[in-house]
Structures are given as structure tokens and as C-alpha cells.
């Protein structure tokens, strides 16, 4: 059995195993009459390791044996394989965001008054973390509630130059006819964003597995 074959069997076994395999176990894979010496196994492992230099994976010895692993530098792009499909924002979040846009500067209490229900603090945190809303001050009443306003990023995300580009309530009443116009406007940002995220969803592993 030549060196290349020994190396190939070892590489194949390490990749097929999905777990670390010890050198002794690797040696056992070969038929007795052509079983390489322990030194030959070690040599093959060393050659494999050298062959992976500058590649996407590396050979590494851990407690229970040898394994082939993804290089740490590549963990970030590779991790995207498991990226989950984004959830949708709740209705409550959208209403809160809209109220902040239309009635800024506004406190959480004022939003609650208009919506008639309490606003989950997570909602405020989410829109702030998203960069769409920020705290611009406090209303000087007992409790000093935070004053919320929309950001530049909010305008950018929705493709607006100023808040004045948002329709007035009177226009909103006609949102069905407005829809045509809006899609036109929104064409600058929102569809673009969905373009990026829709294709992976279409042939994402979960979609494929689910059908």
C-alpha cells in the first residue's frame, strides 16, 4: 500500500467520521496484511496537515484523536449557513415606530395613551438597537420619561429625504390608491433589502427540508 493511498484513506476517514479519530483507530482501517506501521500513519497525518496549509480547513489533534476543522478565520462566513430567516416585526412594533415617526418627540407613556395599551419595553429597545429610533432627551415631568425620535438611518432605510415625505393622514385614508405610489417610492430601499434576503430563503436548507 503506497503512501498516497494511506493518506487518502486517512483523509477520507477523517472527513467521513464527523468525530475525532485516533491514530490507532486509523491504522485499524487497513487490512491486516497491508496495515501501515504506526510511523507511517503519523507521517501521513503530517503530510495531510501540511497539505491543508493555506486552505479552508486544518488538521488538528484534540483529546480523542485527529479531526479536520474549519479554520477559525472562516468561521464568520461559514456560520451564515445556519443563519435563520428573520422573523417579522410585530404589529405593535410597527405601530410604535409609526407613532414615533409622526408624533416625535414622544414618550413611551404618550405612545401608550394613543395605542390604548402598554408598550412592551422590548419594542422600544428593538427599534433603538436597529438604529431607527433614539432618545433625544427627557420630558421634565415626574419620572423624566425619555423623549423618542426617529433617526437619519430611519429615513435612509425607508428611502425618505425628510419626514415630510411621509403621507399625511388624509392621504393615508386613501392608502389603496396610495399603494401604487408608495411602491414606487419604496422602490429605493425596501424592495432592495428584500431582494437581498429573499433568494436565500427560497433555497435555504430549511425551506428545502420543509417541502
Amino acid at each position, binding site marked *: 500500500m503506497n503512501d498516497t493511498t494511506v493518506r487518502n484513506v486517512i483523509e477520507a476517514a477523517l472527513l467521513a467520521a464527523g468525530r475525532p479519530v485516533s491514530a490507532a483507530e486509523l491504522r485499524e482501517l487497513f487490512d491486516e496484511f497491508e496495515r501501515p506501521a504506526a510511523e507511517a500513519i503519523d507521517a501521513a497525518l503530517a503530510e495531510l496537515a501540511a497539505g491543508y496549509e493555506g486552505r479552508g480547513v486544518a488538521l488538528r489533534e484534540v483529546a480523542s484523536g485527529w479531526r479536520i476543522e474549519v479554520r477559525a478565520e472562516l468561521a464568520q462566513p461559514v456560520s451564515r449557513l445556519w443563519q435563520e430567516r428573520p422573523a417579522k416585526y410585530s404589529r405593535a412594533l410597527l405601530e410604535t415606530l409609526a407613532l414615533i415617526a409622526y408624533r416625535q418627540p414622544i414618550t413611551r407613556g404618550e405612545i401608550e395613551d394613543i395605542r390604548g395599551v402598554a408598550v412592551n419595553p422590548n419594542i422600544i429597545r428593538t427599534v433603538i438597537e436597529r438604529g431607527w429610533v433614539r432618545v433625544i432627551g427627557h420630558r421634565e415631568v415626574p419620572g423624566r420619561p425619555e423623549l423618542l*425620535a426617529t433617526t437619519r438611518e430611519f429615513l435612509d432605510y425607508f428611502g425618505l429625504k425628510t419626514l415630510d415625505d411621509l403621507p399625511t393622514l388624509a392621504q393615508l385614508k386613501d392608502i389603496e390608491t396610495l399603494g401604487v405610489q408608495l411602491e414606487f417610492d419604496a422602490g429605493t430601499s425596501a424592495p432592495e433589502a428584500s431582494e437581498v434576503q429573499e433568494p436565500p430563503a427560497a433555497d435555504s436548507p430549511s425551506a428545502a427540508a420543509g417541502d
Partner: protein
Amino acid sequence: MNATVPPAETGPQQHEMPFAIVDGEPVTEPPKDLYIPPQALKVFLEAFEGPLDLLLYLIRRQNLDVLDIPIAEITRQYLEYIDLMRELELELAGEYLLMAAMLAEIKSRMLLPRPASEAAEEDDPRAELVRRLQEYERFKRAAEDLDRLPRLERDVWAGKAELVERHVAPLLPDVTLKEMLLAFKDVIQRAAMFAHHHVQRERLSVRQRMSQIIEALQGSELVDFARLFRVEEGRMGVTVTFVALLELLREGLLEVVQADTYAPLHVRASTPRAAVAAANDDVAATAPADSETR
């Protein structure tokens, strides 16, 4: 190895072994001589996948062509096997008996004299059987081909490398402007009073400017009133700023300070004390939305 034994396997296992080992020799000969131990014979007979499989075996064993079956002889052999299966108390599926009846019928039709001119092929009483045998055989063959394909976990394995640390950045949901506006329309409809009084006629640039002014006032004591205006924004910009300042004053969010009569005006974010005073003056100023919704 004998090529004429198709079910070279036992029960659910494929291509694995002859149906019996006698004195260390693999036995693949057909059981016509009945020298096979009954247990092995049973295994052999059980391996048939139904009457078509058995018939194909009988035909192939004799190197006969499916297209030209000596029906009388094949029927005789078939019935022998059926009897054998009964003797060994094998569970005999109804299909086997149905086939026996079909063979008998074909045999009797073959015996009837046919006018020479009409010896046409479509009249061949075997035609339907031949079609079924062929159809079955091609899928039997296809199953063997399928089994020979290199398949995962038997012939090939997917290569796997360990990813020690996953960094999965969550994807953030997308929102379209329309979605947000529909949400706004809903909430405004639920609070209809509020809608009428304010949003309908309000220029949103005033709201935006209000936020900007408040932000500008953060962290500085006093800001020159005049510096809040930008001439380059023109008359409209100045008006927007002015309306925004009035609205902020009304809401008690800022106060205007003048050191002396005729001294320059300064603006600052309202202090707690001032806010309380404003609240005393005007209830609506501290909780405008509150009063508006009622």
C-alpha cells in the same frame, strides 16, 4: 454460481448469499432435485416477490424468451412450486393462486384451434402475460440498478469538518414603508379624536425639527435663540423652526430665557422646576397626547 437463480438472497437482504450453504458449499441450484434441506428451500421460496417474480425465474432458469413462453410446461412447473410452497406451509399470497388460474386459462386457449389466417400476434393468449412479465422485469432490473448506485452511508459519505465556533449574526426583519403606514393608519383610526386634531393638518417637518432642536439643546445650558434659525433654509425653513419652537414651548419641553428687557433671547431645555410650573399653567402641556385621545 449459477446464473439462473435470480433470488440470490435471503428475505430482505440483497445479493448477499446463496439461498443455502450445504457442507460448506453455496447452494444456488434450483430445488428440482429436492435435495435441499427444507429450511433452505423455505428461504429460497420465500424470496420470491410474487407470482411474476416466480414465473420470471422459471423462464430465465431455462434460458427461455419471455416473448415465447412454452405455456404448458411453465404452467406445470409453476403449479409444482405452488404445491411445494403449500407443503412447506408458506403463507401463500392470493396473487399466486390468481396467477395459477390465469395460466390455466391461457393454456386452454392455446389448445383451441385458431384459424391459420388469424394467427396474428394480438390474438396470442399470452400477450397480456408477456406484457406484465416484461413490465415487471424492467422494474426488477431498475431496482437492482438502483441498489448498485453508490449511495450515502454505504458507498460514499459526505465529508464533514468541525466548525468549532459558530458566529451566527441574526438577520433583522425587513419592513416596508407600506407596512408601517398601514399600522399607523390602524392606530390612528383606533384613536380617531387624536387624528382629527393633530396629525391631519400637521407638517411632519415641524415634528422633525422639534426633535432636532431638543437634541441641539442637550448638554448645553443656553442656546442663542437666533442661532436655531438658518437663513439658508429660506422663509419656509424659518417658519418650520418657529412653529417647532412654539410647539416645544407649548409642550413644556423648552423654555425661553431673557436676561433683560431687549437682551437677546436664549433657549434651554426645560428644567424640572420649569416643567412643573408649565404643568400647573397648562395641563395639556405635560400630557398632550393624554388629553388628545380622550
